[in-house]
C-alpha cells in the first residue's frame, strides 16, 4: 500500500505542477493515474519513487514515510521497487538476458545458475524466451517494453511503477502488456501504479483510477464508474475519443 498525503511539487523555475494530491494505492490492485499530456503524471510518479523531491506532503510506503527517509533507508526500500520507464531505459551495453539478470546480480545471493534460471523465467513470462542473447538496439519497441517488465519483476518487487507502458505500441501488444501487469499484480499482491492516457487500459485494468487535472486530483473511482461519471472535466477527457462517445450513446 502506498499512501499520498497532500503531495505538492513546484519546480525551481516557479512552475507549480502538483497542487496537493492525496490518495491511497492498495496492494494487489492495478492503480491508474490518468490525465492529459502535461498534466503531471510523470512528475507525480517521479515524486513517489524519489527521482524528484516533492515540495511538500508525505508519501507512505506501508506507513514508512519515504520523503523524510535517509539516503540509505531509501536505497533499501528501492530494492523492493520495480519501474518501467516511458522509454524502457534498458542498459544498452548489456544483452537482454543480462539486463534482466542485472538486479539479481546486484542484490541476490543466489548462485549464478539460479539467477540465470530466474531471469529466463521472467523472460518466458513476457514471451521473450528466445531473445535473451539479443541487445536492446536489436529488438522492437514493444519487445523492449516487455524486457523492461521482465527486469522490473526479476526481484519480485512489492511495488511496481509503470510510466505509460503502452505508449507507441499497437492495440494488441498493449493488451498483452496490460494483461501481464495485471496478472503479476494479482499473483504477487504487488502495489502497482500505472500512468496512462490509453482509454483501453482504463477500461481493461482500471481497478482504481485517479484523474489528474491541472495539478489537482479531479476524480477518483473504478473502471465501472468512469463511464457514468458526471464530472465534466473527466468526461471531456474520456469522450475526446469519438469511439467512446458512441459507446456511451449506445449504452444510454
Amino acid at each position, binding site marked *: 500500500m502506498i499512501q499520498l498525503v497532500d503531495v505538492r511539487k513546484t519546480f525551481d523555475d516557479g512552475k507549480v505542477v502538483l497542487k496537493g494530491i492525496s490518495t491511497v494505492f492498495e496492494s494487489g490492485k492495478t492503480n491508474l493515474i490518468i490525465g492529459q499530456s502535461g498534466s503531471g503524471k510523470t512528475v507525480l510518479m517521479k515524486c513517489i519513487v524519489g*527521482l524528484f523531491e516533492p515540495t511538500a506532503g508525505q508519501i507512505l510506503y506501508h506507513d514508512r514515510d519515504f520523503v523524510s527517509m535517509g539516503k540509505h533507508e531509501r536505497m533499501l526500500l*528501492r*530494492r523492493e*521497487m*520495480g519501474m518501467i*520507464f*516511458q522509454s524502457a531505459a534498458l*542498459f544498452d551495453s548489456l544483452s537482454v538476458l543480462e539486463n534482466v539478470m542485472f538486479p539479481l*546480480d*546486484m542484490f541476490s545471493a543466489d548462485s549464478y545458475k539460479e539467477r540465470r534460471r530466474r531471469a529466463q523465467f521472467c523472460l518466458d513470462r513476457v514471451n521473450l524466451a528466445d531473445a535473451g542473447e539479443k541487445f536492446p538496439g536489436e529488438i522492437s519497441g514493444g519487445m523492449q517494453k516487455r524486457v523492461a517488465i521482465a527486469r522490473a519483476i526479476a526481484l519480485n518487487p512489492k511495488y511496481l511503477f509503470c510510466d505509460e507502458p503502452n505508449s507507441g505500441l499497437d492495440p494488441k501488444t498493449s493488451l498483452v502488456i496490460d494483461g501481464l501487469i495485471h496478472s503479476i499484480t494479482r499473483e504477487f499482491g504487488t502495489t502497482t501504479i500505472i500512468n496512462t492516457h490509453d482509454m483501453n487500459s482504463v477500461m481493461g485494468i482500471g481497478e482504481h483510477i485517479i484523474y489528474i487535472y491541472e495539478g489537482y486530483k479531479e476524480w477518483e473511482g473504478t473502471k465501472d464508474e468512469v463511464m457514468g461519471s458526471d464530472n465534466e472535466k473527466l468526461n471531456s477527457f474520456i469522450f475526446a475519443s469519438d469511439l467512446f462517445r458512441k459507446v456511451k450513446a449506445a449504452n444510454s
Partner: protein
Amino acid sequence: MILSSYLHALGRYLMLMGRVFSVPEKFVMYWRQYVKEMIKLGLDSIVIVLIVSFFIGAVICIQIKMNIESAWMPHWVSGYVTREIMLLEFSSSIMCLILSGKVGSNIATEIGTMRVTQQIDALEIMGVNSASYLILPKIAGMITMMPLLVILSTVSGILGAYAAAYIGHILTPAHLTEGLQYDFHPWFFWMGVVKSLFFAFIITSVPAYYGYRVEGGSVEVGKASTDAVVASSMIVLFSDIFLTRLLS
C-alpha cells in the same frame, strides 16, 4: 558571478565524488566493470599513445639536433633533451592532454546518454548507487592503466629518436645512446608517473561529472562532451604547473 558559478560547480563536483567513493553494493559487479573499463579506457588507448609518442620522440630529437646543437655543445645534447622532455612532460602531461580528448569525450557521452535515456534513473530505482557504479570503475581503471601508458609512451618516444638516428641518419646512434644515459635521475621517471596518476583522476572524474549532470537530449550530451574535454584539459594544464612545482 563567474566565480560563484565556478564555486557552485566545484561544490557539485565534490558532492558527486562523495557519492562515487562509497562502499560498493556488490564487489563482484564493480570488479566486472573495473576490468571492462581497464580494457576500454586503457588498452584501447595504447595504439594512439604509441603512435603519437613515437613521432614526437623523433621530432624532438631532430629539432634539437638540427636547430639547437652547435659546435660548442656536447654531442649528447639531443639524446639528453629528448629523454628529459619525454620523461618530464610529454609522457605524463601532454599525453594525458591528448587522452583527455579520447577518454573524456567517451566518458561524458556514455554517461550523458545513460542519463537522458533514463538508464541512470533505472539504476537508482533499483537501489543501486548509480554514481559509484558508473564512475568509480572508470576512475580506478584509468588510474591502474596509466603507469603502463606512461612507460609505453616513453619507450615509444625513445624508439622514435632511434628511428631518427638509424633511418634518418640525423645523428649517430652512439651519440643518442650516450645522451639518453647522461645524468639520469630515476626520480624524473617517478615524477612523471605520479603526475600522470593525478591526471588520470582528472580526465575521468571531470568528464563523468559533466555527463552525469546532463539534462535534455542529444544536443546537451554533445555539449557536455565538448565542455568535459575543454574543462579537463584546462584542469590538467593548471594542475601540471602546481604538481611540477611541488614535485621538483
